[in-house]
């Protein structure tokens, strides 16, 4: 009887330890990280005009080329400004190409944004209507994809990039894709 009472009295502690270890496991992981139906699939067919007379962006560009970071951004999006220096830093990583998709943005505003902060993108596709973004399953800006040399979407990040995400998720994967 006494043992039985002790077990019952220890039950709340056991439940708490279980919950606690689960919380510990979840810490530092992003709950807004969404699985994308497109991961492992080839990029959807699309063709976007460039900004002014710059080069545009199309599915063909992604199908043959280096490992590519596709960053969906807009001048009106505050988190895009926050992640911008990280994209600029990424341009210095050898073997990676960074392209941008300007989402629902006036070309003039996009231009102002890049003039102010610098342009890390090798190519920019202007998606003023946001139609291509729908095919890509864009959830909100900023959003970043990693595309392999043969044009497969390998990884996706919703929300601004952080140093942690780049160092721990994106770069290791990019390195594997380069091999």
């Amino acid at each position, binding site marked *: 009887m006494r043992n039985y009472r002790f077990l019952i*009295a220890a039950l*709340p502690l056991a439940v*708490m*330890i279980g919950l606690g270890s*689960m919380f*510990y496991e*979840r810490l*530092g992981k992003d709950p807004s990280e*969404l699985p994308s139906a497109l991961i492992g699939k080839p990029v959807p067919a699309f063709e976007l005009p460039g900004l002014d007379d710059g080069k545009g962006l199309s599915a063909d560009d992604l199908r043959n080329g280096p490992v590519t970071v596709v960053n969906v951004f807009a001048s009106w999006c505050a988190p895009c400004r926050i992640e911008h220096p990280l994209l600029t830093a990424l341009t210095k990583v050898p073997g990676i190409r960074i392209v941008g998709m300007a989402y629902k943005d006036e070309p003039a505003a996009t231009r102002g944004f890049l003039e102010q902060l610098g342009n890390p993108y090798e190519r920019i596709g202007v998606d003023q209507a946001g139609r291509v973004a729908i095919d890509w399953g864009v959830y909100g800006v900023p959003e970043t994809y990693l595309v392999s040399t043969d044009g497969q979407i390998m990884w996706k990040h919703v929300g601004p990039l952080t140093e942690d995400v780049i160092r721990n998720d994106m770069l290791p994967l990019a390195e594997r894709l380069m091999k």
Partner: protein
Amino acid sequence: MSGSPGIAEFGHFALILAFCVALVQGIVPLAGAARGHVPSIRLGDHAAVLQFLLVAAAFAALVHAYVTSDFSVLNVFENSHSKKPMLYKVTGVWGNHEGSLLLWALMLTMFGAMVAVFGRNLPETFRARVLSVQGLVGVGFIAFMLFTSNPFARIDPAPLEGNGLNPILQDPGLAFHPPFLYAGYVGISIAFSFAVAALIEGRVPPSWARWVRPWTLAAWAMLTIGITGGSYWAYYELGWGGFWFWDPVENASLMPWLAATALLHSAIVVEKRDTLKSWTILLAIIAFSLSLLGTFLVRSGVLTSVHAFASDPTRGFFILIFLLAVTGGALALYAVRAPALKPGGMFQTVSREGALVLNNLLLATATATVLLGTLYPLILDALGGAKVSVGPPYYNSTFMPLMVPLMVALAIGPLLPWKRGDLLGVLGRLKFIALASAVGGLLVFWLTVDAPLLPVLAFIVAFFLAGSVVVEVLERVQFRKRGVPGALRRLVALPRGAVGMSLAHMGLAVSIFGIAAASGFAEEHLGIMKEGDTVEIAGWSLTFEGVEDVPGPNYTATRGRFEVAGLGPMFPETRRFESPPMETTEAAIHPTILGDLYVVVGEKTGPGHAVRIYWKPFVMWIWAGGLMMAAGGFFSLSDRRLRVGAPVRRAAPRPQAAE
């Protein structure tokens, strides 16, 4: 800069000192109580008051930095703006992570100081232990601030202008409900400290319940106001006419409330019948743990929520360790000591205490339901499953059905005597009420085409509960025997605890009625309206007369004008703030006792504007009921029997046996 050099550092220093005092308070009285060393025991009182004064000084320093717009303080820069109205400069102090923690700590130490000052009727060693536990909780909180969330961090060079406060937070409702919530969360820490102190002493006398009840009651009433205010804020500010979204942050306040409600009721059983002790102690620990869990969930970023503070894994890690230390320590002590607590006598199922046990079972299940719903996405994700979000359908099919038997138990319980009751007799006294409620519910069902089942059921229990409260009060004042004048005289003379209970129970009936009406029978019109268009809804006729731009103090508003037949114009607004850039909706609400007319004007769409118009029947009753519950709590609190020093002071066993 306008900043006064040194005041922020003074605040920081006061906080460091408070940390040291908390350490002393957490160790010395506890050790003193174990050894019977009187000066160490008495140190607890002084330390508690000193700790409060130091935290108050730190808080005042932060308020000063906000009021003077001292942007060299990082926290002020990030959350304030020189153009912000003064009221929101002050309330901005707790509208952010660091500042809200400081407010938490302020209230925590205030409650501790109150135990030291007003808890003179507690046995001295017991009070010392309570204060020590409270001190240890304070150590954790202040350390959390000092090591991960220093509100006094400076930036150099100081910026010229602040980043502004989130415009959604610039609202009287949001400015004032968090302090009540925090007071509620923190108030429960006293129940926790009492529980742990009782476990340390290894005994729970009935007087323990009498000591712990006023604190729990005060915390519960504050929490009730906080939740009511938060719900009302969400209703008028978010622009969708909803009053409860089952958002993790809302759940974080609901869970401690449910647990505290259970604790309030089980403490009565401990006091009157000297039983249910182990359960009551566990409830006190769980209620405070749930308060901390809420803090953890909101600030660690493990769950997504519209209310979440900026998340930071380091902070999350610290709170987790703190949560595990507080809860784990208490539960480990519980595991060791609870089996040795003397079980109370057996009791009849049909009795006042039986009904209270049923109430506790249902409340605990409801708490577990909400906990599961809140954590389920997390659990599933941790197990490698899919991403899910748990929404209203889950709660509608789990939480809501639990409320029906709870209401019935609540209606019957107060009519049952202690020890043994006569269920059939009670049902006989309630038969007219039951019949009337059922007829009322069926009438609603019949009058409204395809009425949803759950709201109708809720109407029936709300009527039944309200009726039983009336019956209970009438019986108590012996209305039949004494007639109106005699009954009124008795009503005035009733113990305030009894009146408070009836008021709170009536408040719940009123709330349930409002929830059922507003969620089951609302009408809405969503669409695009052009100038001159007219919409008919629930007997009202609204004509859209266009929009105009209106400048505000730190925003520009697009103000719509609706002419409502028989009422006059209504002006819903959409406000655009500049720093940070953001839009808020200000619904125009015409509140009446029978329901609210709720109008929102949205963005320009084609030839017209997107417009949402709702009729929310009896929606005000939800919050009126909440305030009645809180009023009932405060009214009970003023009961002479609960007041400090009352009633007959039993000679407390002064020299405690050494542990």
